[in-house]
């Protein structure tokens, strides 16, 4: 009986995680596509040297960051998949969303500065998986994108 309650609780969490997580992810992707379309005027490169032939610009650091957490379904699906090995698609979409969101936020900062180009873009990801007691808690990760925006002197 107690076991049945535990199993029922587990399945309920799984379904909630699946439904809420999928809706969340779909909404995030929709917003990402809109934002990316709106910010297409901001060009990003990871080369360190800006072109020499541009009119005079100043450089300014721009950063975008976001923390994204998994849902319960992702967590269970990933640990199940880990038993067999292979690609963890549920986490790939999470990492993809996080990184694109970080770029969008970085570009938005560049746009505020009046820049149209960001050079030397770098990524940083750190996982917040541990809950401090050493036990594996729900997975979440911070994504940072940063670079140098070329700001025209009039705007600066």
């Amino acid at each position: 009986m107690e076991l049945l309650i535990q199993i029922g609780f587990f399945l309920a969490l799984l379904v909630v995680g699946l439904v809420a997580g999928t809706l969340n992810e779909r909404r995030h992707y929709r917003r990402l596509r809109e934002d990316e379309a709106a910010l297409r005027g901001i060009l990003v490169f990871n080369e360190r040297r800006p072109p020499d032939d541009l009119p005079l610009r100043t450089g300014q650091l721009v950063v975008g960051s976001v923390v994204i957490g998994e849902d319960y379904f992702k967590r269970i699906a990933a640990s199940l998949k880990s038993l067999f090995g292979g690609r963890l698609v549920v986490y790939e979409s999470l990492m993809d969303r996080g990184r694109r969101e970080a770029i969008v936020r970085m570009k938005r900062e560049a746009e505020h500065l009046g820049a149209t180009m960001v050079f030397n873009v770098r990524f940083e990801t750190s996982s917040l998986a541990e809950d401090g007691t050493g036990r594996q808690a729900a997975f979440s990760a911070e994504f940072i994108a940063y670079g140098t925006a070329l700001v025209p002197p009039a705007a600066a």
Partner: protein
Amino acid sequence: MSRYENPQLPDDVNVGRENPLTEFLRLAAGLALLALVIGAALYFGGSQLARLIPFETERDWVGERLAPGSGLPAAPGNAEIRDYLQALTDRLAAQMDLPAGMTLRAHYVDTEIANAFASLGGHIAVTRGLYRRLPSENALSLVIAHEIAHVRARDPIAGIGGSAALLLVMSLVTGDASALSGAFAGVVQRGYSRRAETAADTRAIDALRRHYGHAGGGTAVFKTFAQLRTAHGGEPPALLSTHPLDAERIARLQQAAAGWDAAAQPLVPLRLVDERP
């Protein structure tokens, strides 16, 4: 002079094409199947290992107790009937080619639940509920011979060895050892594999023939069980049951008793009657 631009990029290359839900269901089914196969292998391995334990060791280990931890009443039902069961057990065992050193001890269990079982260490039990429903000694002999056949085949210890192996690995995986004691408590209600039951039936019929000169009167046992079971909501279909269905067993018994002339070789009545209400 180079140009700087950001063309539209495909935005879906970094996520695999698999649908997470279908993949999850597929893997969960695979895991369940894997657990089933490993469980079956563990059970089988555990039973084969347990069969290697010498009978003497098993008997010394269990001692005088019948199915410890089963919750059955400790007091013997009726000492006279128990002695009758013991005598019948010894007579039948003499017909069954038991290995040297395999001794049997009969018990008469004071409960209305109709049941008979073989436990560890050569203990054989018949309950009052079953005894009172049997119409003849021949039927009682079939029950006892069937249980002797289980002891002879070492089925009780094999069953316990199998469950113990399974539960041991399960408790290692889950880190919870509390279920382990259950391996030893299950002997009373344990069903063995269809093959073990059929083999025990065959051997019991054989013993009946040697003892009475015919195999008649045994079908009453399964008719009794069939009636009891119908009263409790019917039998499970053949595929779900590890016991060969009563109808199947009755057919086999009828076939074994085909040449029996009831007038020339009458059934032996039970020598003692349990007179309690």
